[in-house]
């Protein structure tokens, strides 16, 4: 039926071990009910109430990214799950994401260790690539370094935590290279050029002008060197630009994550706020939550000053605030007073000490006096489905009425009384009306005294009289004779009186 992966630790954490045994009992007990019910449903055989979509890989990867963030790692598992559920991920997708992220739970570590090793080796490749190439400030070397940032970008989609390191190293090395080039190489080149030029001048002063080619050559060489230096400068500039771009992407990513974390933080803050005050003063979940939402969304509405009519009208005449943005409903003045009192630690004066524990914990459950009635939405179905099965239903009716207690008292999940033909279990029809005046009597219970409140005694007598009539009707249908009514009636009356006396003893 439902394809349930092994339950996450959080769902089973709260259940004592006996419940597992009970659910297995239930499963075996309900097996008879499960398959026939599923097969006879008009909907496809796996239950409709189970999500049967396949896992969406994209969602799982986003979840993995979210869960890998160090800030998220520090938060409790339940909040992480709750966040992902609110984003619309199914249970399977969330479980898969938890499996993929190296997580404290031991079941996840074995599978994640392999992935971890793979990730680390790939990132170390990146790291070894970057420094070696970056420290070669040649025009030829600039191209591979331009490529390696691109490759790190590719890898970063899967394991950006390691890519952070790689990017950082690249940036540092690029910056270092640029600085190195700017500060040392270029001045060196320039000084070398100056030397050459000076030498040339000296030479030209000392030597004859018959060596112009040397100077020309030197100038040409200097020019070439300058050109090379400028190329190198350009290359390093490009490197720096790509680093900046990367930094920008990275910061965007960080911002998105920060936004998500903000949401989580606000949730946890509000929860902490609610759980902070003690139980006595803490019964403010709904109201406070609305307050908190209010401050988050920025829509401020002052609390109403009282129950005065003008206030009500102002509430009603104003157009309803935009749907989707909750706003705090103005609370009555006395509510605010009581809240203030409770928060100060005072107890409101009108509270009594009441002992509401059961006076007799072993009080017997009452016998049901009335047969359960079919619901209006079931009646239609029953009529359609069970045109031919009235006979068996009548038998069922008697069985349920007499033996109802036994069935109900049985272990949960055991149902012995099902009309076989119907698609879903339908409660049995009320017994057929044999005596119209009895039906009348049932519809209209005997009127009680109008001024005094009916006590439960009267209630009991009314109810038992009604049940009495019902029993008489069934007796009639069973026995088929009317002569016996009077005899039975008197017997039953006396037994009824005895019952009442017993209950009130």
């Amino acid at each position: 039926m439902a394809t349930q992966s092994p339950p996450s630790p959080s769902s089973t954490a709260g259940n004592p071990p006996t419940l597992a045994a009970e659910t297995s009992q239930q499963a075996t007990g309900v097996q008879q009910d499960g398959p026939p019910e599923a097969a006879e449903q008009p909907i496809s055989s796996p239950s409709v109430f189970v999500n049967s979509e396949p896992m969406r890989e994209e969602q799982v990867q986003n979840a993995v990214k979210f869960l890998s963030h160090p800030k998220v790692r520090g938060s409790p598992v339940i909040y992480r799950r709750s966040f992902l559920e609110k984003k619309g991920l199914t249970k399977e997708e969330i479980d898969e994401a938890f499996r993929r992220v190296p997580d404290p739970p031991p079941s996840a570590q074995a599978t994640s260790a392999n992935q971890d090793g793979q990730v680390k080796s790939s990132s170390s490749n990146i790291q070894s690539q970057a420094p070696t190439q970056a420290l070669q400030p040649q025009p030829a070397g600039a191209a591979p370094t331009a490529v390696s940032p691109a490759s790190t970008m590719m890898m970063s989609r899967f394991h950006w935590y390691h890519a952070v390191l790689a990017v950082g190293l690249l940036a540092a090395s690029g910056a270092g290279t640029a600085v190195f080039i700017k500060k040392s190489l270029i001045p060196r080149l320039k000084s070398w050029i100056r030397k050459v030029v000076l030498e040339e001048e000296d030479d030209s002063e000392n030597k004859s002008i018959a060596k112009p080619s040397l100077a020309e050559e030197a100038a040409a060489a200097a020019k070439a060197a300058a050109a090379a230096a400028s190329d190198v400068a350009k290359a390093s500039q490009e490197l720096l630009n790509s680093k900046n771009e990367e930094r920008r992407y990275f910061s965007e990513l960080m911002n998105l994550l920060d936004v998500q974390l903000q949401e989580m933080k606000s949730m946890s803050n509000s929860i902490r706020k609610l759980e902070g005050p003690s139980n006595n003063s803490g019964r403010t979940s709904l109201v406070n939550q609305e307050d908190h939402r209010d401050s988050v969304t920025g829509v401020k509405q002052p609390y109403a000053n009282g129950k005065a009519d003008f206030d009500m009208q102002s509430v009603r005449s104003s157009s309803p605030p935009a749907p989707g943005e909750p706003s705090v409903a103005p609370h009555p003045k006395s509510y605010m007073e009581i809240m203030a009192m409770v928060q100060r630690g005072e107890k409101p004066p009108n509270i009594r000490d009441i002992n509401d524990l059961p006076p007799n914990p072993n009080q017997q459950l009452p016998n049901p006096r009335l047969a359960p009635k079919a619901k209006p939405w079931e009646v239609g179905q029953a009529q359609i489905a069970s045109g031919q099965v009235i006979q068996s239903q009548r038998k069922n009716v008697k069985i349920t009425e007499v033996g109802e207690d036994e069935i109900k008292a049985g272990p949960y999940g055991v149902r012995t009384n099902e009309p076989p033909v119907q698609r879903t279990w339908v409660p049995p029809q009320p017994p057929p009306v044999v005596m119209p005046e009895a039906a009348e009597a049932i519809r209209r219970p005997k009127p009680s005294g109008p001024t005094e409140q009916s006590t439960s005694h009267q209630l009991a007598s009314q109810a038992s009289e009604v049940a009495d009539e019902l029993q008489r009707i069934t007796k009639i249908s069973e026995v088929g004779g009317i002569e016996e009514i009077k005899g039975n009636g008197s017997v039953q009356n006396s037994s009824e009186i005895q019952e009442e006396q017993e209950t009130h003893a």
Partner: protein
Amino acid sequence: MPVFKTPFNGYSVKFSPFYESRLAVATAQNFGILGNGRVHVLDLSPAAPALTELVAFDTADGVYDLAWSESHDSLLIAAVADGSVKIYDTALPPTANPIRSLHEHTREVHSADYNPTRRDSFITSSWDDTVKLWTVDRPTSVRTFKEHAYCVYNATWNPRHSDVFCSASGDCTLRIWDVREMGSTMIIPAHEFEILACDWNKYDDCLIASASVDKSIKIWDVRNYRVPIAVLNGHGYAVRKVKFSPHKRNLLASCSYDMTVCLWDFMVEDALVGRYDHHTEFAVGVDMSVLVEGLLASTGWDELVYVWQQGMDPRAV
């Protein structure tokens, strides 16, 4: 139309599935912040249109929700703010009640719902992030469902599939559960804000309505849960409760902190088909009768319980 004044602030109202004229109201003192609670069982006497109290039970802490048993006509489940679940026998006097007090939740129990098909079990949802499954004859819970990351405000049974229920939580998700499975079978991130209530459509068992702090009600089809079928806007503040009609496929009722009870037809473009602004404080509880078509009840922090027929003015005398 009959009105009943409760001494405490109303939190929930539920019609009995056995008696057409009977309903129960859950109330809490001091708006449910801190104080006692009381459960009222009221009778709608047909002669004079008035609501009379049949019996009332006092509790040490506020009562946030009620559920009538579907198997025993006199049993009532109460969800209490001190974390306990109490079972009352309305046929016995208050001195003999409650007949059970089940204390397992570690925080306020916010809702209770009885299984309408199996009729032998009920679920309670709590601010301790869990939903628990119980049967009336057992002293301890049968199962605990712990997956939500925040308070579970509401949990309701599917009207046709006896093992499926839905839960609405402050972690902004709806979860669909099957009691035969270990964990939830579907997670719907229904709103951007807390979801305060959920209910199943009685005639199409794949439709769920969710009501949220963001003032909207969304209708979801579990077969295609990424996008809602309909978004119902019109409430001015958070929607506190939502209930599908037991008689009409497309009709649902909702109550909100904007003090109104609204009726919607989600298949129609202009979905709002009725609005009742009889309450003078937050409208917190609403119910539609299963036995009488068109009968509505609502309660709110103004300490009033109204019962009226759809289409009529609840305040009419």
